[in-house]
């Protein structure tokens, strides 16, 4: 009873956090943050009780809709996702207060807070929704609020386009979910979500349900090739909304797939193969696209696709474990997927907030125009560095611990009686890891290091109210990375909900990661102290004897990534204008290159255009003359009359 009260308090506090701000003008931002902080407190206590105390709760309320009642079940799996949702959204609302201030944006700032709160409330509902109709209501609420937030600056054409693509994609996803849940209901006989009967997964309706749910949840999670809405939407939204979309909303798609895994007692092995194949290809290609982007936020959006792909690799291993009956593999793959999910809810919002601070301080998000910001924005640059190292999966930060579990799962799957295709996630993760290092050293180096590439005017550091939420998230990244063992009981309980009796403690000793980190940091501190104390002088960069270097001869982001992007030209299909250099004294020339999303431009848009053309004959029916419409009504009535007679 207490726990369900906490849950509904969190939902209501979050959902109404933006309401007082609609009337109270000056203190609206603070009230929203305080209410969301209250929601975070309720949510964290609830998640702690479930994940560390082993409690569960249930709430069943009547609803006037047929086949539906308001059924909520609080299990470890949902609570594991609930915790970062409430915590990070509260921090984002603090960040948003000055980033998207009322002084600057007026009424739009109030609207944004209103949509933000409802979106968070809907996500909290989703983590415990146990009836398909409740789930779809909350899902649609979350998705629509996302649309309103993405299009908040709708005077900008690119924002309208990004929002429109999002709108279509999310409804396509909801449609798939409707169909998928109906198929599940036909098997279980109820719209309550729960375990599926054994053998259903292998039948034709089971296959259809899997594919529909994979499409619906995959569209939300942004797995390639269903990611087409994601780069545009994340680039157009205000940065803290991008952080919410990327850090938290994508995870609701993953939550759906985790639930599907939990409900299915006997998935066929090809489900695992499909998840793994999608994860491996989309992870590698997403990073290739990320390396080709100039826009910082588009780059971060592609990196989200990559991280979702890593989670898919973990899901695929867990699915294979279930199909083959290897309990340890379900635990390692599931815990790895959950751990990486949690990590991505921390470092991706951190990076988006960092991108917001860069835009706030310089007024641009074009990386090629930036440079040397570490001197003007030292705090933002330090926090962005933590996020970059964490997202590359480098020890001793949190990103590594999650990927480590997925690696261990792959190695376990290669063992006796295992699943030999597990070598695919293993190799894919190695390539993804190296590409991520390339991608984020490029971003960090081009934005924060070296010298400014263009005249940026006066650059200012972000205010404390924006830096503090970033510092909290960065601190969490470091703390989880240094002591991942603290999450072990929570991961154990949450992954057990996927249907395994194995225990994480017997499979992976997360404590050793802390030992390695301690040794490494100790060694670094000792060496650092020795070098730092050496007397030094300052001079220009030794550029191999160049007497008068300028900032323009620095390596650009495009040239840094060129060797890698060239090997992916077959899929990137960049639009470039390459000047021809002729004669002894060539005239000044301009080189331009741009990499739009090839899946959106060459696959989705043409097929949508084709569909629109194919449907154009329907226009004949709608000529716009009133008598014709009356004729339609009469014909329909007569037809109905005839039909009822016979």
């Amino acid at each position: 009873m207490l726990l369900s009260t906490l849950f509904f308090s969190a939902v209501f506090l979050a959902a109404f956090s933006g309401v007082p701000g609609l009337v109270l003008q000056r203190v609206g931002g603070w009230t929203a943050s305080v209410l969301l902080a209250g929601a975070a407190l309720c949510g964290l206590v609830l998640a702690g009780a479930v994940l560390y105390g082993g409690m569960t709760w249930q709430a069943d309320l009547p609803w006037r809709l047929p086949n539906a009642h308001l059924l909520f079940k609080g299990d470890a799996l949902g609570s594991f996702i609930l915790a970062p949702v409430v915590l990070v959204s509260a921090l984002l609302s603090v960040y948003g207060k000055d980033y998207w201030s009322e002084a600057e944006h007026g009424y739009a700032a109030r609207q944004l807070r209103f949509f933000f709160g409802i979106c968070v409330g809907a996500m909290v509902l989703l983590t415990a929704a146990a009836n398909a109709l409740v789930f779809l209501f909350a899902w649609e609420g979350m998705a629509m609020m996302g649309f309103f937030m993405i299009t908040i600056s709708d005077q900008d054409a690119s924002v309208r386009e990004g929002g429109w693509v999002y709108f279509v994609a999310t409804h396509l996803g909801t449609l798939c979910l409707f169909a998928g849940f109906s198929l599940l209901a036909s098997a279980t006989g109820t719209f309550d979500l729960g375990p599926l009967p054994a053998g259903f997964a292998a039948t034709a309706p089971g296959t259809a349900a899997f594919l529909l749910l994979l499409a619906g949840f995959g569209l939300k999670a942004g797995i390639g090739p269903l990611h087409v809405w994601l780069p545009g939407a994340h680039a157009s939204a205000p940065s803290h909304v991008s952080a919410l979309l990327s850090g938290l909303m994508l995870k609701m798609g993953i939550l759906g797939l985790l639930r599907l895994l939990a409900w299915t007692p006997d998935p066929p092995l090809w489900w695992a193969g499909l998840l793994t194949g999608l994860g491996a290809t989309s992870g590698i290609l997403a990073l290739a696209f990320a390396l080709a982007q100039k826009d910082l936020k588009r780059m971060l959006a592609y990196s989200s696709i990559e991280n979702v792909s890593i989670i898919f690799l973990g899901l695929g291993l867990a699915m294979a474990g279930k199909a083959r009956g290897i309990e340890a593999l379900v635990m390692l793959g599931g815990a790895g997927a959950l751990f990486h999910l949690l990590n991505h809810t921390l470092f991706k919002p951190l990076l988006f907030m960092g991108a917001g601070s860069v835009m706030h301080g310089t007024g641009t998000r074009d990386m090629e125009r930036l440079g040397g910001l570490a001197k003007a924005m030292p705090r933002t640059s330090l926090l962005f560095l933590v996020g970059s190292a964490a997202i590359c999966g480098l020890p001793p930060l949190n990103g590594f611990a999650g990927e480590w579990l997925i690696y261990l799962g792959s190695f376990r799957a290669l063992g006796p009686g295992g699943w030999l295709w597990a070598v695919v996630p293993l190799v894919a993760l190695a390539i993804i890891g190296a590409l991520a290092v390339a991608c984020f050293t490029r971003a960090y180096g081009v934005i924060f290091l070296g010298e400014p590439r263009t005249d940026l005017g006066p650059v200012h550091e972000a205010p404390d109210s924006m830096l503090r939420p970033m510092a909290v998230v960065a601190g969490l990244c470091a703390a989880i990375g240094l002591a991942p063992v603290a999450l072990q009981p929570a991961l154990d309980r949450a992954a057990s909900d996927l249907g395994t009796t194995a225990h994480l403690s017997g499979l992976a000793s997360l404590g050793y990661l802390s030992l390695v980190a301690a040794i490494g940091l100790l060694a670094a501190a000792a060496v650092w102290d020795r070098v730092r104390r050496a007397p030094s002088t300052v001079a220009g960069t030794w550029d191999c004897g160049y007497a008068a270097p300028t900032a323009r001869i620095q390596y650009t982001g495009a040239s840094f990534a060129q060797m890698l992007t060239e090997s992916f030209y077959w899929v990137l299909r960049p639009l470039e204008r390459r000047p021809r250099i002729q004669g002894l004294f060539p005239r000044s020339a301009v080189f331009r290159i741009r990499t739009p999303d090839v899946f959106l431009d060459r696959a989705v848009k043409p097929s949508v255009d084709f569909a629109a053309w194919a449907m154009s004959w329907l226009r004949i029916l709608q000529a716009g003359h009133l008598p014709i419409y009356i004729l339609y009504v009469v014909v329909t009535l007569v037809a109905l009359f005839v039909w009822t007679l016979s």
Partner: protein
Amino acid sequence: MIRPVLTFLAQVSLTLALAPLLPGIINKVKALFAGRVGPPVLQLYFDLAKLMRKDSVYSRSSTGLFLAGPVASVAVGLTAALMVPMGGAGAPLHFTGDAIVFAYLFGVARFFIVLAALDTGSAFEGMGASREVTFAVLAEPALFLGLAALSMHCGATSLGPMLAAASKGWNTASAGPLVLVLAAWTIVFLVENCRIPFDDPNTHLELTMIHEVMVLDHSGPGLGLVFYGASLKLWVLGALVVKLCLPMSGRWWLDWPAFVAGMAVLAMGVGVVESVMARLKLRRVSQALIAAVVSGTFGFLLFLLQA
């Protein structure tokens, strides 16, 4: 109780003391091939002693991150040295999945060295950094395919048992796939340590270099750390290759000298390769790395067929 402590002490002191010897051996072999007397084998020790006493010069463009590169490379080298088995059967620091941590540690060093290179704003260092991250994309899967193959072979994910099982397998049917894994890892060893035929540590043509060009701006103790970190990496990754081949007797007074001798032989081998081969064209480097990936894949598949 006393035995692990002794192993730990032996491993740490040997690594700290002997790592800078390897570049000396390599250079001596190269000099002998060229008919020169060459620098003394202990030259790197002299250089380090000299650099540690010098002042530093920093670029006006650089920030505090500039020193993180050399510091990370030494810290990573020291940590990784505890995780690879040397004379004894197991490493001082071993646990399930330590092979993955071992591989990722070098990613940390790469991350910070690349950032330190970009920190100076120099175009040449940008080129080196770009090449470093590009070739890593192929070197990492080659390393991991080797690990996957060895893990298939013995069922463990800790470097100690993996390498111990592999070194016992050379006179069995496992020899075939082991040769392929060894080939893959030797290429990774040469690329990661920037040796000929992939990169030339002695070149002065900045346009073609990878690692050396990234550290152009380091000076004084920082440069000393760069050199020391590079020799630690040579030592640790060399230990991986040597332990893959070197069988163990189980008697410490035989295994430790054999390991040190193995490392010396490896250094001489590198010296011979550098003397008889030219540097590959930059575009060929990725082809050689793809060969390493293919070799690792076939090693894995052969173990699979045997299992």
